[in-house]
């Protein structure tokens, strides 16, 4: 536990450069500056490590980095996505707060591999504490000569800046984030072209999650194989899981992939107040909800969760006990997507509002018998028809909530009140 991003978390001032360097930080970066590591080596190591994008989509990082056109001389960019906003997820905030240098080093390495001399870390606007920490770390790094033009006499240049968001969940989508970085509304772009060809300011760009970048230095220091073997097949390494909801000790845990959900639940102290587990959302609010039985039988890795009927996502485990009213929970989530839809494409703009209004009506006691079919149908009409994944994210919980807890919804429509008596 706590071997990569959180390895210094228990030390004094874990965010300082000295703490980071004392545990081997920047060793990889210095090796690069000395010319001892080639981009190809790094990509091979990353591919061997099995590191998959930690932002939710789980795309292999090594492969993503190899997509960047490396031979042309045009300006390229690496961008770190610290616009953490998926309900249930709060790991990047802690990485920025407690281990900012790992992100800096990871981004610098990325810049070197992809021949991008400029990087931006897009931090969500509300994360002011992490922002100050990161800025301080940047200052330290510049002062020590780890960043800048022709760093310590080498031919490597890397400038890193922070950009602050201003409150829009959609900017967590990489193309929306790029638009936002350009000073526009955070409306996702359609793909193709992919950012690796046309990204920030029209230049090739790679966007990775904070945790992905933070994991890179440790992987390269200890070897891809070491990292891979921490986890299981198809899900290499360890990952941060934010366990929240009805648990005794909600917290972030960096644990090897493939750990049984039960163990993770125990680490968080189990269900609070001696209640029973009712449902689990394993990967953040956009992933399908699982019943207690499904959850208890699964392990925390990509394949196992997919087999259980959901997705690992960003590793945000939301635990619900038997006092939870599922109608209310789904309404809450539907409101979130309704509020955060960017409004660009039709199904999401119109559909999220429709979903929310139907649920709200049910909550207000005005549900009608056909409403559940309608909800399902509207959800499936959004699914797959939008520019970005927000539409899908809004539709997927609806489908899974209705599938797994249909009797609760039917009860609510019929009786105008929740089936769960003492719901919170």
């Amino acid at each position, binding site marked *: 536990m706590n071997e990569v991003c959180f390895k210094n978390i228990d030390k004094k001032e874990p965010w300082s450069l000295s703490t980071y360097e004392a545990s081997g930080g920047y060793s990889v970066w210095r090796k690069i500056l000395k010319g001892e590591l080639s981009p190809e080596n790094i990509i091979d190591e990353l591919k061997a490590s099995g590191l998959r994008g930690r932002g939710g989509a789980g795309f292999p990082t090594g492969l993503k980095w190899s997509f960047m056109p490396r031979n042309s001389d045009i300006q390229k960019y690496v961008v770190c996505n610290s616009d953490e906003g998926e309900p249930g997820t709060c790991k990047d905030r802690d990485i920025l707060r407690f281990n900012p240098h790992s992100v800096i080093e990871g981004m610098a390495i990325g810049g070197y591999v992809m021949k991008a001399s400029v990087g931006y870390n897009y931090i969500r606007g509300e994360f002011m504490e992490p922002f100050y920490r990161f800025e301080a770390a940047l200052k330290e790094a510049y002062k020590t000569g780890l960043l800048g033009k022709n760093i310590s006499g080498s031919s490597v240049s890397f400038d890193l800046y922070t950009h602050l968001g201003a409150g*829009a969940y*959609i900017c967590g989508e990489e193309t929306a984030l790029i638009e936002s970085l350009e000073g526009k*509304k955070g409306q996702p772009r*359609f793909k*193709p072209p992919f950012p690796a060809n046309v990204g920030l300011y029209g230049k090739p760009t790679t966007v990775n999650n904070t945790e992905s970048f933070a994991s890179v230095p440790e992987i390269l220091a200890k070897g891809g194989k070491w990292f891979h073997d921490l986890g299981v097949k198809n899900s290499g390494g360890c990952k941060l899981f934010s366990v929240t909801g009805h648990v005794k000790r909600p917290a972030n845990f960096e644990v090897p992939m493939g750990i049984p959900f039960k163990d993770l639940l125990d680490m968080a102290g189990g269900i609070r107040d001696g209640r029973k587990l009712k449902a689990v959302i394993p990967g953040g609010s956009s992933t399908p909800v699982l019943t207690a039985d499904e959850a208890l039988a699964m392990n925390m890795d990509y394949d196992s969760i997919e087999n259980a009927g959901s997705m690992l996502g960003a590793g945000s485990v939301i635990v619900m006990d038997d006092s939870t009213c599922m109608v209310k929970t789904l309404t809450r989530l539907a409101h979130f997507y*309704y*509020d*955060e*839809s*960017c*409004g*660009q*494409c*039709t*199904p999401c*703009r*119109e*559909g*999220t*509002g*429709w979903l929310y*209004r*139907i649920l709200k*009506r049910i909550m207000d006691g005005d549900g*009608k018998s056909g409403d559940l079919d*309608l909800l399902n149908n509207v959800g499936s*009409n*959004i699914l*797959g*028809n*939008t*520019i970005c994944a927000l539409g899908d994210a809004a539709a997927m919980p609806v489908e899974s909530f209705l599938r797994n807890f249909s009797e609760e919804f039917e009860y609510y429509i019929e009786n105008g009140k929740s089936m769960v008596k003492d719901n919170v």
Partner: protein
Amino acid sequence: MFEIEIDGKLVNAEAGEKLIEVTDRVGISVPRFCYHEKLSVAANCRMCLVDVEGAPKPQPACSTPVSEGMKVSTQNEKAKSAQKSVMEFLLINHPLDCPICDQGGECELQDVAMSYGSNVSRFNEGKRVIADSNIGALIHTDMTRCIHCTRCVRFGTEIAGIMEMGGTGRGESLKIEPFLNEGIQSELSGNMIDVCPVGALTSKPFRYELRSWQMNSTESIARHDLVGSNINVQTYKGKVKRIVARSNDSVNETWISDRDRFSYEGLSHSNRLLKPQVKFDGTWKEVSWEVALDFCVKGLLRSAGESNSMNSLGVLASKTATLEEYYLLQKLVSELGCENIDYRLGVKDTKNTINLESNVKLSDLEKIDHALIVGSYTRLEQPMINHRLRKAALRGGTVDVINSMQFDFNLALNNENIIIPCEIANLLASTLKVVLESTNQDVPEELNKLTITKSATKIAKKLLSSDASVIVLGEHVINNDNAKNISNLVAMLAKNTNSSTLNLSKTGNSIAADIAGFFPGKDGLDVNSMLGKDMNAYIMFDVYPEYDFHNSSTAIKALSDKNSFIVSMNSFYNNNVADYSDVMLPISSYYETSGTHVNIEGEFQTFAASVKAPQESKPAWKVIKVLADLLDISGFNYSDSSNVLEEAKHNIKQGHRAEESINITDTNSVEVIWQPSPYSIDALLRHSDSLQETKIGQINKATMNSSTAKHLNLGDKDDYLGVPVVISSLVANNCVFINANKSTPSEEQA
């Protein structure tokens, strides 16, 4: 080139093409709202979703590039269900007010809903309502109907070049609106009505008048600028009710300027001249055509006097007549044995003015890599040509400008030279010198004494280094003291730098006038000589003296003082015309007669009459024909205006070719450039109320910098030559740039 399969059919596709371009080409219909062939792809309406084999989700045809071996279905279950669900989403918040919506009957949403919509709504929640914003006199908004396709937003940023509409807010509360409620200011704004697929943006002057199916549509040509935009004139019960763009990629693509779109309003203005009138003892009497024409004939014959010579007849026409009208009038006059004929009413000295040919195709204009604009604000004066130049600039072309005032161009300028009018010739000459020197050619003596300035070197370098460049000469220099020199210098510059030229000073249908030979014969008088002489008679064709003559009060005085017999043919009533004329013959205005417009490419664009001339007014070419018959002149047996055109085509005249000499004169006093404001250039525009209400229509100012104002002893509350003074540092020193929607300057200043 490779093959792809769409709906089981094999079709050819080119790499880089989008799927929708292929389906459109082969005639497979894919519903769409946000896609527009002349705008960038947004892929936001999601209506064009189709099933691409191998893709897990349906793909939007507008943004999916074709690839070899692609198999696409636009009709299968997956595609249909995606399209139907998008249709439902679009309709849930769209009001059901088609019966009062002006777009009803020509609405893309309505059409697509017929095939993809459901007849029952499953949406039981409240519909979204959005407050409208007032965006000016031309466009009415009903934003509740908006489907957020962002075509208008993209039109603004990409075509008009000013981002005026934007999408504010997010999610369901996304609103398409302008920022400040100042109204849309673009000179191309009316195209937003055309691109809007629903009734959110509709024509304000046309509001609630008719349904689209009630009107007849005739193809016509708009004549307010040098391109002759292709339009459809929509009429109802003999009245022009609306004008919309007609696609023609070699002329106007799918866009037309606001001038072309809304000027029709003037046709039904109460100021139309509707009946022939004759002045008996100083008072006007409405008479029949027979009486009026008889009066004309008698008057003209009497004016010839005993010698029976028509040497003392002057014939003047405005710049807006058709080729046929110019030709017939010219023929009539020359048959009478008179050579005093001219259309260059606004030119101070016809011997010293621009004579430059245009030799670039409009569609090639957007491919040039450099343009030098001399004396023109192309954006407002020639919007469609400016649009092509802007396209060139967006493709990476550069634009240099030599002007006397800094204008708000909507394209990036590389190098802007703001100089006083008398220096323009010097700058061009010194540029020519640089060009000649750097190409190792002999420098003519006249240029030897010139010093080479930095800006001249810059301009020359750019012209020399460009493969396809164009020099654009505008209207601002027609009355420059060195106009002829400037014209010659531009021609020589173009020759030596291998550039094309574009002469924007021949506005209206002047090119047709030249072709028809509507200029003084060898011994004939030009306009200014006529006015300076005692002419016994005049025939004035659609002349509005206070706007058309270079010096209005001198002209009016000349026409009214001398006891000449004056026949005026006009489409609008005008007080001054009534003062000096003896007969007023009501003639057709735009869209009321058949004819031909010759555009800057030299393209003959013939149009038919869309409506009949109102009341007793008649198509002008017929009036001239009958007048010729009554004067017993043979050879006027035309049954149709196309006969006239045929004959005119066989008798194409060449204008005088000016000799290439340069002799620059210097002036030291304050120089005035008088330019009618864009919506005041002809009688029809001046009578179009909605256009006059717009910001552009309201332009009426004499701009000068503070030191010029001081020199002239003027403040910003004063008038200069009857035009309100605006003090601004945008104008070159010692220069006054007047943009007026009123008459031309009066005597005192000339």
